[in-house]
């Protein structure tokens, strides 16, 4: 059975829906109330507490720590300043994505990597011959995402020893909550203003309580996976095993993707020197990738028309869907929309799609499959740039 995270004594009481999911073997609340709406709007209009402790966390420490991360990760970590965080994929020798996550530079010779899947064996194998100690610290760190426009104001009341106004996007700092030491990073998976707190498990509940106490007047609310899923699609953030399949999980070669194909080409630095997968990525760069990740915006009028044929109005609000649907160019299937949702804020039906490159022009017209009254229909759509929602406060 999935086991509790360090925040479970609080989340379990709040989770009135009793709807949990198994996230890497931990209990993760799908939603706390009957509907996830309030949790979603906490992310976008107040401040939401999201327990992200199930993330896998690794630390690399030693004289060769930089060489190690630069061997594994596709981005150039020599450009990562102390206290900076970089988001990046990492690949196998064939240049196919194994996983994606953040790499934080805690000290000159000390990095912390977050991952969606277990990666210790891979990291240790990649560290062969280097003077670096790579270890799994997943259970040593509780992680709490604190996301939303009010998150900074609340944190300012809770944290000391850090100037949050100066903590830049994708940077971290040591801080204290009362007497409790923790790390605060200006990161998140919502595309909003937000932070993530990295805490020793024994202090997790105390920090949670302090945030609730100081945040109540600001509309603080715990948010579950359903609200997070909508927010991350709006933010154009991909999810492993949903929007791409890790090379370690692929059952056939065609299921594997390069970083270029999952919208992470910007995070591949082919000039930084050798790293795992570089040769293959260099070749793909020159020959061109097969697939591209795009945003898909379904044309509302067309959607309405499909439903109107059955005397219905569009019934798409609610939970995000992870069931992939075909994307067509005329009658030809050119890709699939792997995550899709009605955006409560934008009032649009949006999704992340993987489309054959020659059909993936931004602004191009396409259509997507929609199921209306058990029948498969096509609704017009447009391929767009992500993120769909990108408030200035995200980076402010």
């Amino acid at each position, binding site marked *: *059975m*999935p086991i509790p995270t360090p925040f479970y004594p609080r989340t379990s009481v709040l989770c009135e829906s009793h709807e949990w999911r198994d996230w890497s073997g931990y209990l993760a609340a799908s939603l706390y109330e009957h509907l996830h709406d309030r949790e979603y709007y906490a992310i976008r209009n107040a401040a939401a507490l999201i327990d992200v402790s199930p993330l896998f966390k690794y630390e690399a420490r030693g004289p060769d720590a930089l060489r190690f991360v630069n061997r594994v990760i596709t981005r150039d970590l020599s450009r990562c300043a102390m206290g900076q965080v970089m988001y990046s994929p990492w690949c196998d020798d064939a240049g196919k994505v194994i996983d994606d996550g953040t790499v934080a530079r805690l000290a000159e010779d000390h990095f912390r990597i977050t991952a969606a899947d*277990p990666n*210790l064996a891979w990291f240790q194998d990649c560290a062969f011959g280097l003077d670096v100690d790579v270890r799994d610290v997943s259970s040593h760190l509780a992680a709490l995402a604190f996301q939303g426009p009010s998150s900074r104001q609340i944190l300012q009341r809770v944290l000391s020893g850090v100037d949050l106004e100066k903590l830049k996007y994708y940077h971290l700092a040591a801080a204290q909550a009362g007497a409790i030491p923790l790390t605060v990073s200006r990161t998140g998976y919502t595309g909003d203003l937000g932070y993530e707190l990295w805490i020793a498990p024994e202090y997790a509940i105390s920090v949670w309580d302090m945030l609730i106490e100081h945040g109540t007047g600001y509309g603080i609310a715990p948010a579950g996976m359903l609200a997070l899923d909508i927010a991350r699609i709006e933010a154009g953030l991909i999810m492993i095993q949903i929007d791409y399949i890790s090379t370690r999980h692929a059952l056939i070669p065609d299921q594997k993707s390069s970083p270029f194909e999952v919208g992470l080409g910007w995070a591949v630095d082919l000039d930084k020197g050798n790293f795992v997968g570089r040769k293959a990525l260099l070749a793909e760069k020159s020959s061109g990738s097969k697939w591209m990740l795009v945003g898909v915006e379904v044309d509302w009028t067309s959607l309405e028309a499909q439903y109107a044929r059955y005397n219905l109005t569009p019934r798409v609000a609610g939970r995000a869907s992870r069931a992939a649907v075909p994307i067509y160019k005329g009658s030809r299937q050119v890709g699939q929309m792997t995550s899709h949702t009605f955006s409560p804020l934008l009032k649009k039906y949006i999704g992340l799609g993987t489309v054959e490159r020659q059909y993936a022009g931004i602004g191009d017209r396409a259509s997507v499959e929609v199921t209306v009254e058990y029948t498969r229909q096509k609704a017009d759509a447009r391929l767009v740039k992500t993120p769909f929602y990108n408030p200035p406060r995200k980076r402010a």
Partner: protein
Amino acid sequence: MPSEYDAIVIGGGHNGLVTAAYLAKAGKKTLLLERRHILGGASVTEEIYPGFKFTIYSYVVSLFRPEIIRDLDLTRHGLMILPLESTLTPLPDGDYLYRGADHYETYRNIARFSQRDADIYEDYSRMMYFMAKAVKYVLGIVPPDPTSLNPAELNGLLGMARHFLGLERDQFYTLVRLMTMSSADFLSRWFESEPLLGTLSASGIIGTFMGPRSPGTAYVLLHHYMGEIDGVFRAWGFSKGGTGGIAEALASSARALGVEIRTQAPVAQVIVKDGRAVGVALESGEELHARVVVSSLDPNQTFLKLIDPGILPDEISASIRKFVYRGSSGKVNLALDAAPDLACLPGAGAHLRGAISISPSIDYIERAYDDAKYGNLPRHPYIDAIIPSMIDPGMAPPGKHVMSCFVQYAPYHLREGNWDEKREAFGDIVVNTLAEFIPNLKDIILHRQVLTPLDIERNTGLSEGNIFQGELSLSQLFFLRPAPGVAKYKTPVGNYYQCGSAVHPGGGITGAPGKLAAQVILKDW
């Protein structure tokens, strides 16, 4: 003289039943003859102690071909394979390794011994899936002989070559390693923690007289992994009613298809006229005639006892005589007054519904093999125990239990004494070994049945008590099983066929040899 039957199948083990059922399904008037009073061969359930049903010999299924279940409508005839989804390895220091259907629970359990092993475990499982997928093709074909220039054979070889060359490069290399390495060496490429290595390597030695460090055992590992495909992710299952339930379902289906089944009808010999089989003579003296005779027995009986070996070509007779059996396993079946209570995980729980594996390390198993190699009883045997009554409550009276303990090694050839003298000493070793991990065991035993390889041979007719009708080593597989020239279900005697585990793809409750034999027979018809 007109034949009374189209086909006579000798032996009512599961493969004999499968062949008979398929022949009848094709419209052939088929008679199946079984020596014992009960069908199933080594797939039998018997009530040795009143109220307690023992799955006497074989006890789990993973490889039974799903198409046989579909073709023969076995579900309607009572077949039900219940999930057996976990393996518990209790350790001498009181700790344990538990692996079950809950992916991350297994992950955390392995991580207690090695974080690396936990990380890589899923990669290993996926790799074995690829390997099983690659080899599955071979299990479903009549093995072509690579030395033959016959166009049909070459075509078969070409198909196989195409299949294997279609593998991803890494997968091909891994397959070659799997075919050549010992299970210990193969697994050590992945893992480092002893309880995991020990327990996984045990799959590589089941039914063989080889240790985890013997080359070739990695393939056996794969043989036991094959159940993972075909959309069935619970590799191992327990047949409702014990493995006798499989035999009963097959027999019921066979009868419904028109097979005539006679038990207590031991065959003395196959009647051969002008180089062709024309029927059988029973030990009773009765003669029965058929156009085709099929033996599901092992090669020792099929070639050397049921027919006059003198009519075989020398080369084949010699190969058959050199076919290796080397029974290596024994069985202890217990009737229990209450549930076993494990020291490492006291009380009830899911772990009692799975396998309990006494395999704390590779060294532990290898030492058991060392003892057996020289004809001694192992001081500390490898044991794979299950409690069938926890999975299927019908196996024992309410609140009581049966326990099935598969034991290795039990060498057929003892250095000193004989098995009739050593039987109970062997039983004591098994019970004492288990009692180290199950403190209440000795107090709850109501009845104990100890089966040595000699008993297995006497009761089932399996030579030297080899549960696979002959060692599953690479040298005795595919076009070499049971010998070159007789690996395609035929024999040098016309109309005389083989359909048991001694032909491709080998042992285990798969039904595959039986089905492939029926295909070949019907094609020749």
